């Protein structure tokens, strides 16, 4: 028995030490990696960002707003903080983490749609948070959602369990066998495709009468508070309702009332603007979309140019 206990303890100490060392090194590497979304989170946590414009939103922001076009050929600095699969509460969290560590932006462009004011209880694409799960600003918000367990938060590096792609990517970069490159630029990840996704056609047959989106009042309230905060901080807030393919409009019964909520929120402050693209001319051109709510790269470029034009017309840029 003595031999058994000694050997087990020795093995536990040895393997534990090796585990902690390896994962400490891997995590440090991931904090400088461009794998997955790490380039954006690493930029945010670097504290070196000094962008005049930040864009927030869901995948509508991430895939549809080009910082280069907005920046008018780099005359000003723009960063896209769009988060695929996330609603307003976590979009604001990402902005707040950015804001706490980096220079205050002059303008915050928020891309919204009919889903933005709803609530989603789970975390999407949770791998993106792994190297930063020690940051209390982030974890306090993450804990409000389903996705990570007690062990992920409290046991060292347990959050990497089963995340083979992340571990292998970190390990390959650690031993300098491979350097991953970001597929986006400053948080912009366009989808360069002309293929129309079949999901909408399924939706039409499954739900021919369309649906009424149930809004979450807490999220609406949070949006109002966020707008107030930006106004207090003297940050111009541009709320933009994203374009949607016209044939889709009839399937969301309360589109107009949702956009009126944004309009009402924007009307409370002089520094807040609401721009409605939900019925713009882009919406009628199917070839600019790859599904009813997402523009492809061509569409995104036209949309970004339109935003730029609006910003100019509002005389918010280059003054």
């Amino acid at each position, binding site marked *: *028995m003595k031999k*058994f206990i000694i050997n087990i303890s020795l*093995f536990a100490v040895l393997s534990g030490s090796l585990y902690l060392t390896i994962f400490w090194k891997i995590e440090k590497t991931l904090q400088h990696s461009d794998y997955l979304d790490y380039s954006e989170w690493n930029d945010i946590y670097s504290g070196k960002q000094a962008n005049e414009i930040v864009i927030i939103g869901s995948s509508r922001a991430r895939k549809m707003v080009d910082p280069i076009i907005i920046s008018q050929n780099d005359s000003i600095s723009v960063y896209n903080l769009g988060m695929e699969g996330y609603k307003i509460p976590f979009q604001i969290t990402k902005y707040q983490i950015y804001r706490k560590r980096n220079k205050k932006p002059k303008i915050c462009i928020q891309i919204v749609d009919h889903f933005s004011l709803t609530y989603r209880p789970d975390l999407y694409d949770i791998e993106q948070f792994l190297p930063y799960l020690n940051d209390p600003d982030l974890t306090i918000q993450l804990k409000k959602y389903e996705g990570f367990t007690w062990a992920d938060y409290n046991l060292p590096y347990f959050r990497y369990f089963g995340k083979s792609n992340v571990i292998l990517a970190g390990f390959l970069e650690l031993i300098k066998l491979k350097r991953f490159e970001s597929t986006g630029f400053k948080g912009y990840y366009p989808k360069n495709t002309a293929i129309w996704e079949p999901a909408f056609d399924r939706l039409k047959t499954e739900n021919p009468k369309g649906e009424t989106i149930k809004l979450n009042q807490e999220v609406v309230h949070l949006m109002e508070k966020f707008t107030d905060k930006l106004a207090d901080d003297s940050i111009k807030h541009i709320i933009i309702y994203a374009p949607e393919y016209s044939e889709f409009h009839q399937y969301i019964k309360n589109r107009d009332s949702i956009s009126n909520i944004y309009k009402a929120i924007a009307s409370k402050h002089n520094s807040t603007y609401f721009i409605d693209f939900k019925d713009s001319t882009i919406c009628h051109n199917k070839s600019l979309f790859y599904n009813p709510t997402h523009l492809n790269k061509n569409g995104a470029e036209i949309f970004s140019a339109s935003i730029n034009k609006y910003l100019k017309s509002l005389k918010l840029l280059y003054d």
Partner: protein
Amino acid sequence: MLFNSLDFVIFLPLVFILYWFVFNRSLTNQNILLITASYVFYGWWDYRFLSLIIFSSALDFILANKISSTSIQKNKKAFLYISLSINLGLLMVFKYFNFFIDSFANAFSFFGIPIQTTSLEIILPVGISFYTFQTLSYTIDVYRGNLKATKNITSFFAFVSFFPQLVAGPIERATNLLPQFQKAREFKYSNAVNGLRQVLWGLIKKVVIADNCASIVNEIFDNYATEPSGMLIIGAIFFAFQIYGDFSGYSDMAIGFARLFGFQLMRNFAFPYFSRDIGEFWRRWHISLSTWFRDYLYIPLGGSKGTIWKKIRNVFIIFIVSGFWHGANWTFIIWGALNAIYFLPLLLLNKNRKNLDNIKSTYYFPPVRDFFTIPLTFMLTCLAWIFFRADSVQTAFTYIGHIFNYQYYTTFNFSYELKMTSVLIIVFILIEWLNKHKEHVLENIDKKMPRWINWSIYLLISFIIFIFGGNQQDFIYFQF
């Protein structure tokens, strides 16, 4: 409590320390500790069902003693029937009540007589099929005179509830396990280390193979109507590995943990996918259940003796009952019947006991005949697994229909998960193939290699479990 959970990581060392260092002076105290630990382990799911185990244990303890104490054959039989009726009755109520009600209603509707039925919201107690069969075998063995009824209540209760094998087997025979509770256990270093090695390999099977297959299989079976044929084939093959990894992984862990406490449980799996015919497969798959049915159902029915029709009847009965044991669904019954159909030609041609030998450890490349028979047996098994996994018989037929329908012969995306799991399965098969002569893959590795190499292997396996571990935690067989 699951073996692959953090709760168990705390539970096991605690029980181990108490067992060997605090309660080690008295056999009764050790057994009481094991009963308590087992009830905590079981109650972690739902403490209300502890009453069922306690009731079942008490019932068979009393009835077996009654059988033993009476010399009148009629009374012996009566006590046995009471045990059978109550144990199987409980199983019927908790597991099969809704199935029978629904099946009757469907049958009446089929003949144009619609009837209103009420299904009960019954939660299936975890492991009820396993411990019921274990207590039944005890009472039957006492009735047959193969075993003397025990007067030691703590050892009997510990035998029924022993936590490593309580919820998913191996279904132990009282003749093997009960005597181990009645004599002092001795801690043997080699036995304990061998047990831990088996646990480690069991974890690989469950966490790396089964859990990674599970997420892909679930996705395919949830969307089977639109998946291409190639994907459906992958779904069937991956499910074969999911269920093997899940169940044999659990058995390996159960046997390994039992070794830590000085117990020797029976082997439950013997590399079944290397079988050369379906008869051999069933001698290697879920051995404790197959032999249970053989000893308590097949042989009493006459086995392979008697007329040809009797043989056929017996084969169908044993396979269909085996299917029904797994769950209250027609899919399991068809799965059982399909295996009976596979088995019949072997029986009728008198070749069912042809491949009794273990595939030789010395050949690493199978001879030409086995090169065909092994994959053929595996494919037949995969086909049957589709019924096992499908929600309904109709789903299973549509699934199979789409595999052979050229309209579904389209290309599909080989995702990272699919590639990774395929590589893991191939490596897993190779390792199992090279170690097929052993009881488990890591058995006796210390005898051939220096300690630092052994420890490196354990470390590597631990890291592989951590890196490639899948998300699904539950075990498939808990629902049976």
